[in-house]
């Protein structure tokens, strides 16, 4: 700790930070622009000036930039000194010489860092009387607007896009007061994290184009804490709604998880909630089994639907439930309770179920720990095995960009450069690479970081992994027949991991290979030997894959068998499109055989089309619930708004079915707390989920926490076109949040933060006021509870079965999934922007392979895999090994479920021969 003096009062601060960090952490309002808590200091904007004094006797002092000055012991500064105050005001005055003052028509208005800082410095009158500079704007794709006249040249955008997120198609151009931030030419921004510019830019240069289409001011949005549902990372978000439409997603800081940033899928995938494909009312559809083939369907009242379903359960010959990795724990558990554990199926493919179960096993029975993203950032040697992280767990990739810097940062440390001095650190590091290794089936977007990248078929990736494990622990089996370069690569990877303080292995379900996951575990375990810490980070395919895995249940194939064998004739499908989980034929067969299929979902899907009854489920923003992310962290999301129509949470539908079928205990399930209590009792592994957040009855000074801002406008007039009586705001029996603007206005407990706002801090930068220290945990701790911790084991349960080397086959290819940020995920693709940027289905081959086959990019070829036949254009996927072909995972029109699988290719003119 160090003592610093601010306007003559002593304060204790942590060692090693800069003065701006220290002042903000202490709660002082020091304005700033170019500094960003995640991107640190460069000293460009000169806004954060304070006056520094040599000692007590020094009365003159000198102006310094607080972001560039260490807060070392004995530092004496003044924030209130008149000269430095005038200087700070003049910085704003300079910005304003060219700023267009177009706040009324600017999307940033009301949550603008520039507005806040202008107020803070007290600059009021315009003295500049000359012409303003103007710029042309660019088209940057479907996600971001560009309004360069508003730019204040703080350089944060380039620093984020290039330095932080690794993008290279955006830059700063020209010089003096003509500097321009944009692209070399108009076009879609290529970086997966471009949407963060909305939050990173302190003004309205970059704003959310999807929000822009149905814009309202920040204070008119109803918001609640939520969790992103578009991958297994579980980023914390703040969705905003008005007039029944979800309007945007913003980042919700969680110091352990996503921290300051989201990926573009997470930010822009929300539009499915407003989609035409929503199921908004209960539907009943006569089925062929009823002898009615008219195919007509009718919407019915909830009670009628429930009675119908209850009848099915009474009179049917057995019911099974199919759960979902994209539904909450509460929903899955309600289904499991309804049908009974022995009739509960997880609803994921055989492969996915096995892989997720294995990951859970590894993380709970072995000594390696699953790190939070914050811990990932501090890893100093990384081995990514088998995963295209950027496309399967994007924000994890962003964290890995930080870990890749850890080792090279030593050069800066040696030169006594503090780690917050960003430009100097970068100069010292230059493009030095750390011990960062990637082994993946094709070339991935993190390869600019890697010391070495290796591409091979999944089995060969596993073999490399086992070889690394062997290098670390010679007692582990030796991998026979490994090529010499691969063995030596294994040696260097093992060496680097061994030398590291915080080694990290990253793997996951992406390859669809058990062996890859086992190899990753072996490496981490071999490193953990002797009590040393080694982190093991697995990606999970969906937002609640791990939660569902922890709940157990058989795989989908089990459900198919049960029906096949006549054990059941009725199925209740929860938030699941089975066509994404298994081959078309198998699903058709299954749905053909069951007499009665009931679906509870928020979207119509190919599966729902075949169901006899469909119940409209709440989407994430309309529901409360708990999800378990790939770290094993259970996180709570809250209802943002009450949807129209007959929509309610899946668990409530299931509860209502239970009540209708006279299961008395279900009457007690009045809110999620009750469901969670029942879940914790049934499955103790979930015990802690009750402690993630305060219960529904929680009040502060007798008050709930309002979802609406105190400045929420037009509440009394919102429905004036329908009725002049102000409707009563909906009640929320489920949580301590209310659907009003009244309530507790102070800082709520961290899991319940509905928005970041503090007097004078209307922009996202208000988050500083919610953290115990800038960039540190939220006050009261970061939300979420880890359900998986490593075991203290005497005997590490190493995996010893090493797969044989991949052998390519004549006339056949091993088809593996290729992941796409835009397209591979089911719901986000319903956002028009994401659909626009997602690829069309294709057949991926590496260039050489394509040449050998004499097919060129774009040429259509017939693909025969898993009994399905596709006509697909060829696309060049760099890095794919010979004998391996790629299919885009999850894209409508291509089935990923049972990949990897062997299949064949044929040109329209006939079979393609292997050369």
């Amino acid at each position, binding site marked *: 700790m160090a003592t610093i003096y601010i306007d003559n009062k002593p304060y204790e601060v942590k060692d090693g930070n800069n003065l701006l960090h220290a002042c903000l952490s202490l709660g002082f309002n020091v304005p700033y622009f170019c500094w960003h808590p995640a991107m640190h200091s460069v000293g460009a904007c000169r806004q954060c000036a304070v006056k520094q004094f040599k000692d007590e006797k020094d009365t003159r002092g000198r102006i310094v930039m607080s972001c560039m000055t260490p807060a070392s012991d004995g530092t004496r500064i003044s924030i209130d000194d008149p000269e430095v105050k005038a200087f700070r005001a003049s910085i704003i005055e300079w910005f304003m010489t060219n700023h267009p003052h177009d706040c009324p028509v600017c999307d940033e208005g009301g949550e603008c860092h520039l507005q806040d800082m202008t107020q803070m410095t007290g600059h009021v009158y315009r003295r500049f009387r000359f012409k303003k500079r103007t710029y042309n704007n660019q088209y940057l794709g479907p996600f971001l607007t560009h309004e360069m006249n508003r730019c204040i040249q703080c350089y944060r955008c380039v620093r984020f896009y290039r330095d932080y997120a690794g993008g*290279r*198609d*955006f*830059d*700063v*151009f*020209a*010089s003096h007061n003509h500097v*321009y931030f944009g*692209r*070399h*030419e108009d076009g879609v921004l290529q970086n997966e994290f471009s949407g963060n510019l909305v939050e990173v830019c302190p003004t309205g240069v970059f704003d959310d184009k999807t929000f822009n289409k149905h814009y309202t001011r920040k204070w008119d949005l109803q918001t609640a804490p939520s969790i992103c549902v578009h991958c297994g990372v579980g980023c914390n978000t703040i969705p905003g709604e008005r007039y029944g439409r979800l309007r945007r997603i913003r980042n919700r800081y969680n110091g352990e998880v996503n921290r300051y940033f989201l990926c573009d899928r997470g930010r822009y995938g929300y539009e499915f909630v407003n989609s035409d494909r929503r199921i908004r009312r209960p539907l009943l559809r006569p089925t062929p089994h009823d002898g009615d083939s008219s195919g007509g369907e009718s919407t019915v009242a909830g009670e009628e639907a429930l009675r119908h379903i209850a009848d099915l359960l009474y009179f049917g010959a057995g019911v099974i439930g199919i759960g979902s990795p994209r539904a909450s724990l509460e929903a899955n558990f309600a289904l499991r309770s309804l049908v009974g554990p022995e009739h509960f199926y997880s609803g994921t493919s055989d492969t996915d179920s096995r892989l997720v179960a294995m990951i859970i096993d590894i993380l709970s029975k072995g000594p390696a720990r699953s790190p939070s993203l914050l811990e990932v950032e501090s890893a100093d040697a990384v081995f990514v095995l088998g995963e295209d992280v950027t496309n399967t767990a994007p924000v994890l990739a962003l964290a890995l960009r930080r870990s890749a810097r850890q080792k090279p940062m030593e050069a800066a440390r040696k030169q006594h450069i503090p780690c917050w001095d960003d430009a100097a650190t970068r100069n010292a590091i230059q*493009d030095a690479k750390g011990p960062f290794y990637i082994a993946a089936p094709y070339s991935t977007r993190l390869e600019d970081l890697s010391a070495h990248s290796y591409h091979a078929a999944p089995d060969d990736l596993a073999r490399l992994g086992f070889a690394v494990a062997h290098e670390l622990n010679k007692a582990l089996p030796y991998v026979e027949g490994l090529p010499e370069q691969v063995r030596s690569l294994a040696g260097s990877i093992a060496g680097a991991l061994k030398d590291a303080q915080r080694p990290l292995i990253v793997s996951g379900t992406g390859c669809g290979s058990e062996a890859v996951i086992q190899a990753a575990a072996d490496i981490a375990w071999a490193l953990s030997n002797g009590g040393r810490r080694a982190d093991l980070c697995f990606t999970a395919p969906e937002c609640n894959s791990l939660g569902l895995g922890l709940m157990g249940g058989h795989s989908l194939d089990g459900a198919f068998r049960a029906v096949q064998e006549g054990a059941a004739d009725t199925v209740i499908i929860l938030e699941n499109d089975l066509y994404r989980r298994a081959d078309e034929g198998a699903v058709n067969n299954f749905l053909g055989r069951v007499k009665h299929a009931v679906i509870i979902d928020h979207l119509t899907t190919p599966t729902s089309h075949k169901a006899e009854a469909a119940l409209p489920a709440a989407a994430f923003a309309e529901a409360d619930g708990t999800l378990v992310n790939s770290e094993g962290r259970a996180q709570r999301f809250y209802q943002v708004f009450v949807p129209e129509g007959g929509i309610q949470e899946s668990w409530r539908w299931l509860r209502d079915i239970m009540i209708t079928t006279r299961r008395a205990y279900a009457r007690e399930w009045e809110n999620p707390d009750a469901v969670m209590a029942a879940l914790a009792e049934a499955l103790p592994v979930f015990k802690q989920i009750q402690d993630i957040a305060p219960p529904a009855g929680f009040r502060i000074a007798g008050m709930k926490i309002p979802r609406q801002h105190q400045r929420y406008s037009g509440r009394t007039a919102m429905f004036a076109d329908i009725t002049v009586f102000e409707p009563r705001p909906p009640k929320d029996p489920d949580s301590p949040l209310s659907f009003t603007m009244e309530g507790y206005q102070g800082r709520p407990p961290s899991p319940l933060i509905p928005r970041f706002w503090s007097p004078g801090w209307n922009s996202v930068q208000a988050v500083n006021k919610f953290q115990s220290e800038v960039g540190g945990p939220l006050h009261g701790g970061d939300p979420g509870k880890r359900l998986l911790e490593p075991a203290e084991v005497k005997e590490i349960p190493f995996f010893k079965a090493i797969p044989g080397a991949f052998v390519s086959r004549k006339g056949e290819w091993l088809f593996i999934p290729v992941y796409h940020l835009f397209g591979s995920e089911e719901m986000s693709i319903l956002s028009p922007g994401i659909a626009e940027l997602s690829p069309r289905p294709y057949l991926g081959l590496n260039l050489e392979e394509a040449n050998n086959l004499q097919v060129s990019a774009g040429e259509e070829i017939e693909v025969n895999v898993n009994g399905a036949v596709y006509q697909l254009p060829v696309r060049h996927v760099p890095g794919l090994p010979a004998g391996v072909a790629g299919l885009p995972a999850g894209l409508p029109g291509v089935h990923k479920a049972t990949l990897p699988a062997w299949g064949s290719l044929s040109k329209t003119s006939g079979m393609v021969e292997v050369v």
Partner: protein
Amino acid sequence: MLSEKEKNEIETELKQYEHKRAACVEALKIMQHSRGWVSDDGIHDLAGILGMTPDELDGVATFYSLIFRKPVGRHVILICNTISCWVMGYNQVLRSLNERLGIGLGDTSADGRFTLLPVPCLGACDQAPAMMIDNELYGDLTPEKMDEILGKYSWERD
């Protein structure tokens, strides 16, 4: 497409540096030397061999005042507008150029012959006012000397 000559010259420059991008200013100048200016396509072609993206290279190119990202005339006149030259009669020299070429600063003459650009201090303050045409420095300028100097760059002589 880069010409062989451009490619070779750039290759030579690349040898001077441990990192490719360090040669980017030289590479831009090589292209400018052979083509007069650097087009968008030129930026793409150069970026490729420098291991940079077009955005990165353009960020550097547009930083500098002597990399021309728009077409220029056959001869570029850089007239020094800084203090010593300015005190010593820059304005008269400029006016006589304006009149003779029919163009203002930043313009290219109708015949595509000359582009007139201001430049900060040419380091020829002892010969103020001064200007540079292509690689040639001209000092102690007076309006009277203009015809002779510009004449050197007349059509017949090229």
